[in-house]
């Protein structure tokens, strides 16, 4: 039953991921957390890259969909305190990696389902990054425990999502919308929002996660979450074939470059970073909607990372990865490795016989 649910949830995400392209989103970018948060950073004037400025309603939809679902099911719980500042910086590192590849793990899957073989190289890097992250987890890596917080903290992200929605609908003069480039391609606001709400709902219920699927397979040989990814690929592939979007190959793929080494390294950084956090960028957005303020810090880190990537010329383009981008993603990788060593404590005792519980944790 659980397996059926996660498969259905994946099918829904894959279906909407291509349908949004049909309604106007950029090619192979019906849904992309990294690209959309980057567009929001531009829309708010946090970076100066003119082609990527728009307040994507899907992002608000993911957060609000998860929020409403969590409230209705009694799962909304405000919590935080598990290394929030570190999660912010890890979020930045992930964004730098994602903008090297040009996409989050979800867009990687959508690109794959559209025949973009550069995403296959990215996938290998992604799994490699997760594999490294899993080695640290096995040795006791932990960002520490979160704790319950006053409920008002948990409402901050849903309110922020609502404010962003009001901004995109009212389009005041102080926000920026691209007139050409990827962010000029957009589905109608209400369709984007509705798709976002549906995906937020589905991911909140089924815990669909692109990082979790490979991590659980490597760590505990649990294929549960993999069915979600299979669902996304299956639905997106069928939709891409139906709409004529499918094109197999490396060259001339939409919003992509063919530099395999940097596609590999970019997504390896994303895989490693997201394994540190406990979930992929989409999952972090959903958690931020259900009261997890640590995930909210990650989302803000993704936003800051997008601003840094574009302000300092790190972000890749269809022409490839700039030298600054290469340096940036290597620094991000080094940072994530340092975090790994700094937060790995092998002396965690998980059990004690004889009644009393005794535990040392980070």
């Amino acid at each position, binding site marked *: 039953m*659980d397996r059926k649910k996660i498969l259905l949830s994946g099918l829904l995400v894959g279906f909407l991921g291509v349908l949004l392209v049909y309604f106007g989103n950029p090619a192979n970018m019906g849904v992309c957390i990294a690209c959309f948060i980057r567009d929001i950073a531009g829309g708010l004037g946090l970076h100066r890259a003119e082609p990527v400025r728009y307040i994507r309603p899907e992002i608000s939809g993911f957060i609000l969909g998860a929020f409403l679902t969590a409230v209705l099911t009694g*799962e909304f*719980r405000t*919590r935080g*305190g*598990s290394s929030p500042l570190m999660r912010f910086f890890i979020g930045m590192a992930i964004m730098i990696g994602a903008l090297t590849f040009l996409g989050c793990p979800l867009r990687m899957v959508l690109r794959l389902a559209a025949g973009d073989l550069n995403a296959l190289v990215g996938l290998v890097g992604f799994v490699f990054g997760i594999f490294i992250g899993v080695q640290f*987890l*096995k040795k006791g890596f*932990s*960002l*520490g*425990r*979160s*704790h*319950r917080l006053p409920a008002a903290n948990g409402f901050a992200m849903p309110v922020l999502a609502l404010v962003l929605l009001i901004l995109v609908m009212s389009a005041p003069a102080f926000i920026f919308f691209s007139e050409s480039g990827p962010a000029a391609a957009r589905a109608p606001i209400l369709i984007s929002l509705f798709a976002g709400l549906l995906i937020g709902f589905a991911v909140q219920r089924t*815990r669909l*996660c692109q990082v*979790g699927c490979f*991590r*659980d397979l490597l*760590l*505990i040989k*649990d294929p*549960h979450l993999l069915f979600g990814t299979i669902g996304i690929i299956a639905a997106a592939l069928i939709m891409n074939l139906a709409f004529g979007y499918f094109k197999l190959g490396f060259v001339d793929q939409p919003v992509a470059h063919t530099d395999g080494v940097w596609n590999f390294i970019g997504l390896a950084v994303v895989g490693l970073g997201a394994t540190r*956090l*406990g*979930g992929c960028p989409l999952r972090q957005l959903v958690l931020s909607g259900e009261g997890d303020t*640590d995930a909210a810090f990650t989302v803000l880190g993704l936003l800051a990372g997008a601003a840094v990537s574009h302000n300092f010329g790190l972000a890749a383009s269809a022409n490839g990865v700039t030298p600054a981008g290469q340096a940036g993603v290597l620094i991000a990788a080094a940072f994530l490795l340092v975090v790994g060593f700094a937060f790995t404590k092998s002396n*965690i005792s*998980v*059990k*004690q*016989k*004889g*009644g009393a*519980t005794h*535990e040392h944790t980070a």
Partner: protein
Amino acid sequence: MSTQLKVDVRGLSCPEPVIRVKKAIEANPGEPLTVLCDSFVSAENIRRLSGSLGYNCETTENNDEFVLTITKKV
């Protein structure tokens, strides 16, 4: 005094709760285990892990926290 194994996974991010429970089960095969947990996701994951390792898992909810009792299937 009865022998009792306890693991506290409250507040830990995915997949740490599952790793800790798995380690506790593997270090003490067949023995009953009590897990203290405060997240719906972790509780689900631990229930799934228990099943895959051949254990039963009973959940009781107590003040927004879950107590999972894991016992070997007979």
